[in-house]
Each structure stands twice: as C-alpha cells, then as structure tokens.
C-alpha cells in the first residue's frame, strides 16, 4: 500500500504544480497582452471590419440561415486566427521560449497558452456575435443552443490552433502562411460541424435542431481528442 500511496501523492503534487504553473503562464500572458494589446487589438479590428463589410454588402439580401451561420463562423475563424498564432511566435521571437523551457513543465506551457487562446476566442465571440446578430438577424435564435455551439466550437478552435501555433513557431520564416496552411485541414472538420450546428440555432426546422444537438457531441469529442493529443505530443514539439 505504501509505495502506491507514495506514487499517488507524487502524481498529485506534480498535477498541482503543473496546474499552478499553467495558471501563472496564463496570468503572465494576460498581463503582457493588456500592456501591449497586440492580439486583442488585431482581432477586435478584424472582427469589426469584417462584420461591417459583410452587413454592408448583404443586409438587403434575404439570406438563408445556413448562409448566415457559415458567414458567422468564417468571421469568427479568421478573426481568432489572426491572434491565436501569436502565443508561441511571440515567445520564440522575443527569446523568452528558452527561459520557459528551463522553468516550466511542457504540459503546463501548453495548458497556459490554451487558456490564453480560449480567453482570446471568448473575447472575439463576445465582440463579434452580438454585433453580427444585430446587423444580420437570423429568423430565430435559440440562445442556449447558440451559446453551447460557440463554447464548444471555441474550445476546439483554441485547442487545435494552440498546438499548430507551437508547431509553426519553430519555423525559420513564413510563420503566418504556415500557420494557416497547417491549421486549415485540422480545423476544417470543426468548422463544418460548427456551421451545421449553428444552422439549428438560427431557424425553426426541427431536423436542423436535432442535427445541432448531435453536432455538439462531435464538437465536444473534437475538443477532447485535440486537447488530449496536444497534451501528449506537445513535449516533442516544445523540446528540440
């Protein structure tokens, strides 16, 4: 019994330390972001300009709910992507990534960066979605369903994009282009399911609503799989 108890205690203290470190990295990234406003500034500007451009071009059109759902996720995806890649690129370009490698467990670095990207995606959604719903109002809104789709879609988007950001940060040049190229096939299944689920939150068709509910299971599974895989593989990406 005693050796097992010892292992459990060690695992418990490691987990506690890992979570504490992840929290510190998240807090540090927030501090740096609030002082530079680099990511928040670029994603806010992108969100506002794309929503205004889309509404200016299409507000007079009678768009179907599937077109509105697709447009919403296109705006969310590209607005978020303009900030998500920065989490690791900034560390590498400023030369602070080696200091993080020395002081923090790899899994904590991924978890801390994931938390920051989650906060960024949440901020993008808070800015974009209400504005989008005002300028291009759907036929109907199921608030609970919409919030659930946005939360699960945002989680999957953050998790996959954080891992891809870590991968491309090691590249010598062309990081932005590489980020979109690598992220595109990884995020495409998520985007397709998120759009289909959002359609169910935007109209009164019962089959769409049931599709949305089953789509949320897929989104949840996508998030669990990408986060677990990223936590297991991140060590190999992070250490050269």
């Amino acid at each position, binding site marked *: 019994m005693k050796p097992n108890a010892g292992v459990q205690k060690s695992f418990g203290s490691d987990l506690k*330390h890992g979570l*504490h*470190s992840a929290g*510190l*990295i998240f807090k*540090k990234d927030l*501090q*740096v972001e609030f*002082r*530079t406003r680099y990511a928040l500034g670029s994603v806010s500007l992108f969100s506002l300009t794309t929503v205004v451009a889309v509404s200016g071009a299409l507000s007079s059109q009678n768009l179907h709910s599937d077109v509105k759902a697709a447009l919403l996720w296109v705006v969310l995806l590209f607005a978020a992507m303009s900030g998500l890649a920065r989490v690791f690129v900034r560390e590498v370009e*400023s*030369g*602070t990534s*080696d*200091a*993080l*490698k*020395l*002081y*923090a*467990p790899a899994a*904590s670095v991924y978890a801390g960066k994931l938390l920051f990207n989650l906060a960024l995606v949440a901020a993008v959604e808070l800015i974009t979605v209400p504005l989008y719903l005002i300028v291009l109002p759907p036929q109907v809104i199921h608030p609970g369903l919409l919030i659930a789709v946005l939360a699960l879609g945002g989680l999957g988007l953050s998790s996959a994009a954080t891992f891809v950001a870590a991968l491309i940060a090691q590249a010598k040049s062309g990081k932005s282009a590489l980020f979109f190229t690598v992220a595109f096939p990884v995020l495409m299944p998520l985007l397709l399911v998120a759009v289909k689920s959002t359609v169910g939150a935007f109209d009164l068709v019962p089959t769409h609503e049931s599709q949305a509910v089953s789509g949320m299971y897929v989104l949840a599974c996508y998030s669990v799989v990408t986060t677990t895989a990223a936590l297991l593989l991140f*060590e190999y990406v992070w*250490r*050269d």
Partner: protein
Amino acid sequence: MDVLEADDIAMAYGPRVLFRNVSFTLTPGDFLIVTGRNGAGKSSLLKILAGLSRPIAGVVRYPSDAGAITNANPANELPIGYCGPDINIYDELSAAENLTFFSGLRGLANVPVRDLISQFGLDPKRSSEPVSSYSTGMRQRLKHALSLVGSPRVLIWDEPTATLDSNGRKLAEDVISSHTSKGGIFIVATNVDDEAERWGTKKLRIGP
C-alpha cells in the same frame, strides 16, 4: 552523488561537427571555465548541460547516479541555474514580476525578489518598471539574479560579463566565489582571456 558528469558528448549542426568526445566530471566546489574561439560550440555545450539542447552523442548526468539530462528532463526538474545570451526575460514585465513569475514556475513562493535585485546592484526603486526600460547591462544583471532563483546547486553562465561594467563584473565574481565556496558547481564560458586565466579550478577548451 552530487557530481555532474559529461560522458563523451558530441554536437553537430548538419554536417558541421562542433565538438566530439567531450568528457568531464565536476564535484562540489568545482569551477569549470570553458574557452574556445567564436563558433567553436561553447554556448552549445552549455545549453546541453542545462538540458536545453540535445547532443548528437553522449550523455550528461546530474546527479551522477541519476538519469541523463535530456531534452525530456531539462533543468526545470533539476537544481540547475542557467544564464546565457539567448535566454531573455519579458520586456513588458518589471524585474520583480519576472523574478516572481519564474520562481512561481519552479514552485517557489515568497522568494525575496527585492533582495535578489539589490544583490546584483539594481535599483529596487526601479524594480516595478518594465524591463524594456533597462539597459543591456541591467538586463544581464537581472538574468544573473534569475539564474539564482531557488538556490540551484549548479550554475551555468554563458559570457556572464560581456555586457557588464566594472561594478557588474565584480558582483558576478562575488557570486561565483560565494557559490563555489559553499560547495556549488559553477560552469562559465568566456572569451575574456583575463577571466579564463584567473577563474576556474578546471579548464576546458573547445575546438582548436
């Protein structure tokens, strides 16, 4: 045993071999000076010792009866402090915030950051200013202070005095002599002939 052991390590970038068959053993109180011309691989060797890089051959063990220091078992698991030109601190954070952040990552609470800042001759009144307002020498002093967080038994400094004034060099020498006199292991890479002559109980020249 509290011994650092490098066993037959080699490093190369592509076809260019920097060094091979580098072996040494350091015991408590030892001070190793690593010298060599520019590009010989001094910094690469020190990064391998800290667990930041992986050698193409050989192993580093610390303590010598433990597993190898590898990229999967870096210094964050070990009592090793490292300071090198390629390690940077966060410009947007203050000196105190940087030290508190990194000590927190090592699981240390209530580290006397102001004492560390004062020990390296930095003005405690400026400890809440962003590091971006610091000069190169002040940043170097802060990085030295950072390497001491958690009182590591092994300290590795790469070109520690390159950007320091005479007062800074004196403070660095004080830290080195204090650390080794307390039984710590110190490893320094330098290009300064005077330091290479005066410092070190052991010397290692990399390359021709």
